């Protein structure tokens, strides 16, 4: 059950520290009562959680959002992990577009990229399942398999002591997911669509993780440095208060920032 290991570890470290003597009021709670580190970790949403809302707000042209090329791997482990994240995110886009051939192509690519970072075994079954379920157009099941592949890859990396690399897979997926989200919202702006970008906890979470990488080679990687800068640039653009409007100019800026990074991740010679 690798997907739960990280969460368990966090819980083990902080559960005893978070013990409170009194029950909180059921209607309100003082969040500052909890040790900061206990609530620092954020479950990173999969792109389909956001895409689902976009589907409810309108009829996005998902096929138009798909990338023709999934990018190329350069042999650099940081780039491979980031690329894997973007490819899995692309899988969620292809599911929305209901494109079985693209989904199958992505399923195979997930496997080859996993091999490059020594976690092929963890996603072998997922990859097969993605292809099988795409063949019968069971889109809900394919979506679940992509989610599972993401967790399995990260779990396997953590087991191998590559927690930093696992974060890069999440970050890569988030960047590509955000690029697609902003692409759709900028084309057909609504305040509700733009509000989906209000993700300060996630941006802070990724920033902290990238700033505290123990692997210096990864921390000093050019792409990682660029992502840290991008997160710093995005932070003031996503709204201070919940529900505060995010203007279309900000959506466009975030789109440009994430698009540039996706281009670098998918084609850079490291």
């Amino acid at each position: 059950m690798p997907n739960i290991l990280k969460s368990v570890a966090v819980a083990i470290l902080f559960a005893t520290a978070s013990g409170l003597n009194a029950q909180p009021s059921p209607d309100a709670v003082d969040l500052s009562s909890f040790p900061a580190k206990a609530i620092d970790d954020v479950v990173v949403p999969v792109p389909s959680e956001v895409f689902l809302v976009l589907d409810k707000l309108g009829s996005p042209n998902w096929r138009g959002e798909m990338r023709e090329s999934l990018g190329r791997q350069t042999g650099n482990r940081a780039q491979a992990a980031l690329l894997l994240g973007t490819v899995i995110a692309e899988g969620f886009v292809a599911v929305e577009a209901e494109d079985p051939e693209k989904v199958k192509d992505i399923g195979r690519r997930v496997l080859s990229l996993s091999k490059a970072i020594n976690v092929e075994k963890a996603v072998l079954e997922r990859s097969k399942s993605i292809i099988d379920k795409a063949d019968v157009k069971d889109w809900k099941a394919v979506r679940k398999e992509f989610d599972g592949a993401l967790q399995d890859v990260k779990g396997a990396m953590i087991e191998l002591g590559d927690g930093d690399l696992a974060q890069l897979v999440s970050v890569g997926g988030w960047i590509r997911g955000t690029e697609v989200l902003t692409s759709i919202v900028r084309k057909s702006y609504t305040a509700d669509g733009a509000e989906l970008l209000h993700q300060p906890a996630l941006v802070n979470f990724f920033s902290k993780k990238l700033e505290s990488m123990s692997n210096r080679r990864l921390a000093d990687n050019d792409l990682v440095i660029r992502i840290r800068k991008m997160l710093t640039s995005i932070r003031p653009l996503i709204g201070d208060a919940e529900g505060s409007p995010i203007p279309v100019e900000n959506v466009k800026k975030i789109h440009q920032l994430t698009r540039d990074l996706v281009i670098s991740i998918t084609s850079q010679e490291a």
Partner: protein
Amino acid sequence: MNKLLPVLLLVLGLSTVFAYVDDALSFAQEAALPYVKKGFSVREDAWGGDLGVKEQQAMQAQLFKGNEYWFCLGTDVKGAVLTVNIYDSKGKLVNVETTRNGRLSAVRVVPTKTGSYFAIVTVVKSPQERTGWALVYAYK
């Protein structure tokens, strides 16, 4: 060997914890089953751990206005009573509906704003000193 001992103890301790969190996770996933039938997708990611009686654990999640969520909690301890409540970033309770059935409990949330939310798990009572728990969420 002296240097290895803490590592071994840690590994042995974690193995025990993972075993009962695995059980608790099965119950959490069982708690989510009725909602899968209603079109919800259950996330593969999960939280888990163990708590003493009256202890609490907070977890942070990014939720999106426009979606509906069920947070499903399971425990491996028969007779234990655990609760899960969801609060917004200001600490205000946002539960819309709650259900409880033995080792399973669940809470429905319909966010009115996109942003950070906090799931707080509490062990209200338990026949054991430490109670394993696991939490998953489903969205639609």
